[in-house]
């Protein structure tokens, strides 16, 4: 597949940006500047970046609790996202949502979701609207292996299939739902086999190879756009960090972690781009420096932003009118 150098570099930059953003979040959450918990996307960058770049700007995404990567790939303002994680009033959700509810209507991002699988029926509803409005928009619906065992997955995928809706279901199989491995949670090896039950195309891919993600998603997006209905793509990957802040990772081995880290999606893409003469050491350094600065600026913005006023608790419960006290 021939992609412009500019686009390939943008994809590389997006991956670096996700990883650096997440590293900062990891730092600030362990130091208590960010309260609560968060779910980091480190190790899975190729999926969000490959898939979202394979679609068009006008297309929509629905995201998950592990959603920072999707938002960055879709073009969120990372200052606002970081400020949201810090609970600041300048955040994406004015400090009301936090990590689990990052959303960005400006970039057609229907939002992260705190409920595993909760975004799948919503994505299907959005796809139903796109079909009714005949606007050629496609919805990329991200979820995890864990979500595939929710009833909502079955209901929503079946509806999308019955109605030929323009939605691409992208499962990020990072091998664990919290501590429970896919081996324990499924009695099938290839999760994409479930597509057969809905009579839609299903394919398992290497989610750490960005060009593979790109190609497969692009084909699915175009099929959806041409009224060819939904697809299920299961991208095999691994989350380098624990499920969330409190996770001691006792359920997996260091050897397993090491083996997956050797298949680092960023390193793999970097090698490819170097081989193509698009990247060299100097350019990599420049890009990393530029992104460091961007992420640092986001942190500075978040740190310097004010917290919401206490009275803001009552805002935005309803579109109109006040909350009954």
């Amino acid at each position: 597949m021939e992609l412009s150098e500019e686009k390939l570099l943008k994809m590389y930059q997006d991956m670096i940006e996700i990883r650096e953003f997440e590293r900062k979040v990891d730092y600030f959450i362990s130091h208590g500047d960010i309260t609560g918990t968060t779910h980091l996307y480190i190790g899975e960058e190729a999926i969000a970046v490959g898939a979202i770049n394979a679609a068009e700007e006008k297309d929509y995404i629905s995201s998950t609790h592990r959603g920072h990567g999707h938002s960055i790939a879709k073009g969120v303002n990372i200052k606002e996202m970081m400020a949201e994680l810090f609970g600041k009033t300048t955040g994406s959700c004015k400090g009301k949502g936090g990590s689990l509810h990052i959303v960005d209507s400006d970039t057609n991002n229907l939002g992260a979701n705190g409920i595993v699988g909760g975004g799948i029926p919503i994505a299907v509803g959005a796809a139903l609207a796109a079909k009714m409005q005949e606007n050629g928009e496609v919805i990329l619906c991200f979820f995890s292996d864990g979500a595939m065992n929710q009833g909502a997955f079955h209901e929503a995928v079946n509806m999308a299939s019955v109605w030929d809706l323009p939605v691409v279901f992208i499962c990020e199989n990072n091998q664990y739902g919290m501590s429970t491995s896919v081996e324990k949670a499924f009695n099938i090896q290839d999760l994409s086999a479930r597509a057969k039950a809905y009579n839609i195309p299903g394919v398992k891919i290497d989610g750490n190879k960005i060009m593979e993600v790109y190609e497969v998603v692009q084909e699915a997006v175009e099929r959806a756009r041409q009224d060819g209905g939904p697809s299920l793509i299961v991208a095999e990957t691994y989350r380098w960090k624990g499920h969330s802040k409190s996770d001691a990772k006792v359920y997996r081995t260091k050897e397993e972690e090491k083996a997956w880290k050797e298949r680092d999606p960023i390193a793999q893409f970097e090698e490819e781009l170097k081989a193509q003469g698009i990247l060299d050491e100097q350019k990599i350094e420049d890009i990393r420096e530029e992104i460091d600065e961007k992420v640092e600026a986001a942190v500075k913005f978040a740190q310097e932003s004010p917290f919401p006023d206490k009275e803001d608790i009552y805002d935005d419960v309803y579109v109109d009118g006040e909350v009954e006290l």
Partner: protein
Amino acid sequence: MREITGRQAVNEALREEMERDENVFLIGEDIGIYGGAFGVTNGLLDKFGEKRVRDTPISEAGIAGAAVGASLMGMRPVAEMMFMDFITIASDQIINQGAKIHYMFGGQMNAPFVLRMPAGAAAAGAQHTQSLEALLYHIPGLKVVMPSTPYDLKGLLKTSIRDDNPVMFIEHKKGYGEKGEVPEEEYTIPFGQADIKREGEDLTIIATSHMVFKALKAAEELAKQGIDAEVLDPRTLVPLDMESIVKSVSKTGRAVVVHEAHRRGGIGGDIVARIVDSEAFYYLETPIKRITGPNTPVPFSPVLESEFIPSEEKIIKGVLDILD
């Protein structure tokens, strides 16, 4: 003025709103060729076609989620839960998703969908008869509408469809057959305006949904005994027109709250608390009484079911108890 049934009133509201706004569409189980389990959507498939009157698989979470998702994209979905009991299956989409989208997203998005749902005991046992309004009333972000008469059903459904928030529209199965005056011409009813269905001086009966009809009959019986009851129908529970309730109770000095739902955790308890929290407290001459369904599932046998549903007699007895 012409009289139509509650069923026809809902049907007319849907039809008129679909004619007014091409973004309004219906989605639910057996609402198309079958016309809905209670015949409410009869004829709408013929008029608007399968695209806008969309039959679904039996997938309540999927239906509610489709309504949420489509509403985020500028559509105005009106989803039907065949029975209100089935909101339990769709509860993630209603409670965790739809209700909270505007708030947790900091106002960036809103979900203007309507979920219609028939409630109430009607000879169907424990899983097809519940009045679960208190569950919905508890959840910030939802508006909860629970009309009684055909006039209110029509006017409030039209307002619900035009509202920019998720609206839970609770219809009573027995209300579908009730007849009432409904004008031919267009009208809507604002949320948060209770309706005094009968004016009176001696006490206020606050009744919801189908209990309004029972309360009105009870009031007529009480009138024969020289007791002049005011019957107030809140019509919308969220927002609740406390101003009218406080005004009425302050005038009469006595209140009885009637709903079909179970007593424990029912909205009656909250209405009483809100009366007690208000200036109406100083006008109270007697305790406030709740006449409700018991804290049991709804039983099947006609004998047991009629024991469950608050009757005219029970309302009269409750009123006489506080007047003694």
